[in-house]
């Protein structure tokens, strides 16, 4: 791990029974870097992303995220660490259907001791940035796919993360909406200096990244 690395994984492996889905992977991501993890479906990209983000523990190896070794941390320690350092964007948005756009954005702030007004203010700032300031009270069911993903991006940013993990963020969107989402991610990385690790199986999308890491059968091939 270099001085400027925000994330590093060393000799990471993950086994489910006899099946080894991630094999001795080592990688590092610098602060503010936009890295794409590409590979075919089932090559272990998502599992590696889960390990690096602290959602899953490796069978072997070490993960250091923002200077903290997270592979040995407890569930609750990991949750608190994610709350303070990490943002997530998922392929299927994973918005809470009963909460409005701003409440979904503020979801990571709910366990924090602050007023609803403060939460709403912070969420509105981000939704304004996503050009969704007029949709803050709408439920996810009233939003288009692109709007849902923009709400999810706002949610990923609400806690001022050092790094965002994006798992196929355009996978459920049409090409033009997907491009718009990629523009937002690029802008985030460029203007705000947030590091991004994005998983995709579309080589075209990876062109936007500073660096591309290719995976095949659980191993990093380039």
């Amino acid at each position, binding site marked *: 791990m270099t001085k400027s690395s925000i994330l590093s994984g060393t000799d990471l492996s993950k086994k489910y029974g006899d099946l080894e889905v991630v094999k001795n992977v080592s990688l590092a991501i610098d602060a503010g870097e936009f890295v794409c993890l590409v590979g075919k479906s089932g090559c272990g990209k*998502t*599992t590696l992303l*889960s390990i690096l983000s602290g*959602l*899953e523990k490796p069978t072997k190896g070490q993960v250091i995220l923002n200077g903290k070794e997270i592979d040995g941390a407890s*569930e*609750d320690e990991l*949750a*608190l660490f*994610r*709350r*303070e350092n*990490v943002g*997530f964007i*998922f*392929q*299927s948005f*994973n918005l*809470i*259907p*009963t*909460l*409005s756009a701003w*409440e979904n954005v503020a*979801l*990571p702030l*709910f*366990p924090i001791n602050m007023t*609803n007004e403060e939460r709403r203010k912070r969420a509105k700032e981000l939704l304004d940035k996503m050009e969704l300031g007029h949709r803050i009270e709408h*439920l996810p069911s009233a939003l288009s796919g692109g709007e849902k993903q923009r709400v999810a991006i706002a*949610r990923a940013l609400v*806690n001022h993360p050092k790094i965002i993990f994006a*798992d*196929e963020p355009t*996978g459920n969107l049409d090409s033009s909406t997907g491009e718009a989402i990629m523009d937002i991610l690029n802008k985030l990385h460029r203007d705000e200096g947030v590091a991004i690790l994005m998983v995709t199986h579309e080589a075209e999308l990876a062109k936007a990244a500073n660096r591309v890491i290719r995976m095949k059968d659980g191993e990093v091939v380039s």
Partner: protein
Amino acid sequence: MNLRYMTKELYYQKRRTLMSILGLSIGIALLIILNSLSLAYRQAAHVPLKEIGADITVQRSGDVPKELTGAVFPCSAVTIRKEEVEKIQKLSGVKGIGTGLLLWVFDPNRAWIVLGIEKENSIGPSLLRSSVTEGRFLKDGKPEALVEQAYARQFGIKLNDTISVADKRFPVVGFVDASRAAKIAVANVYLPLKDAEDIAASSKGLQSVSPYVLGDVNLLFIKADQEKITGLASEMKGILGNKATVATPESFLKLLGSLFALSDKFTLAASLIAIIVAVLIAFKTMAGNIAERAREIGVLKAVGWTNRNVVSQLMLESVTQCFIAGVLGLLIALVVSFGLSFMKVNIPIPWEMSPTPHFLPGGGDQIFKTLRLPVQVPWSLAFFAILLSIIIGGMTGGLLGRHISKIKPSEVLRHD
């Protein structure tokens, strides 16, 4: 815990929320109704005794009169000696005693049921004072009579007439309406206790069956500590012997025969079943609800909610639903209880306590005290039911929350 999240979850998931609330509210309503009914039967069982201002009545069975002439004791109420009354008076838990002397008087052309009463004692038949429909109640130191209104009408007895009972003459000073009075310790003619004692003491037929001296009685009306009634009943049987008939609210309850009246155990068992059903309904519905939300819980954990945050949130939802269910159950129970309070209950009066000779017309008929079942939900029961709902909510939310919070976000959030 976030109230906003909780209210939105309950509001937008209406079907889920309603199912949970309705299921539990029915269980809670059942619990309240069963206990209110049981309580109502218990209160009803107090009524026959309460009507004569007593908690216990005591009499003693004896031999059948040899001849039905002059004054005799009914075989169900023979002499209780003065010393026995004094012993009973000294028992711990006895708050006061009223006495009475019940006689059957067979005059040549008429049969009287005569009750000698203590005019100033608030325990016992002197409560008839409020049932005087014409004339006045008995006064101290005067040999005078009160006559039961229907009996007076039947035999053409008028106010201020003089009636002859066992060769003694009594002016009629008032009429009483026995239908408004108690079903026990009733008679055709009410005399001052002293005059009834004189009649009993001078009756050879009575003396030959059940020796009697002035001061003895054959009916006792006892006011007692509620907690000590059962114990007192057996102590009194100890003093008066096996032939004593001791009537208590408990003995009337047994006569009622209803499942609710028969035993505390039935009510307890039925309440337990209602609680278990309520808990199972709440648990099953909420378990289904929470299982449906596995992905949502995964999102919460991924964005930084700790297990404790998740459990607290689910507990808040569960406690709120169960509290609403408890309130709804209470409202259902109040409505049902109001409906049940129109139900009539017939409390049978044991034949020993019926003053009418069984060989006279209507004497063999079973007498009932009929009253509206006093069903009402006591505050303590309502409070317990609401508290129980909250506890069920807390336990259900806590257990299910702990279980679901163990899921790994990576397992439920893998893209489809």
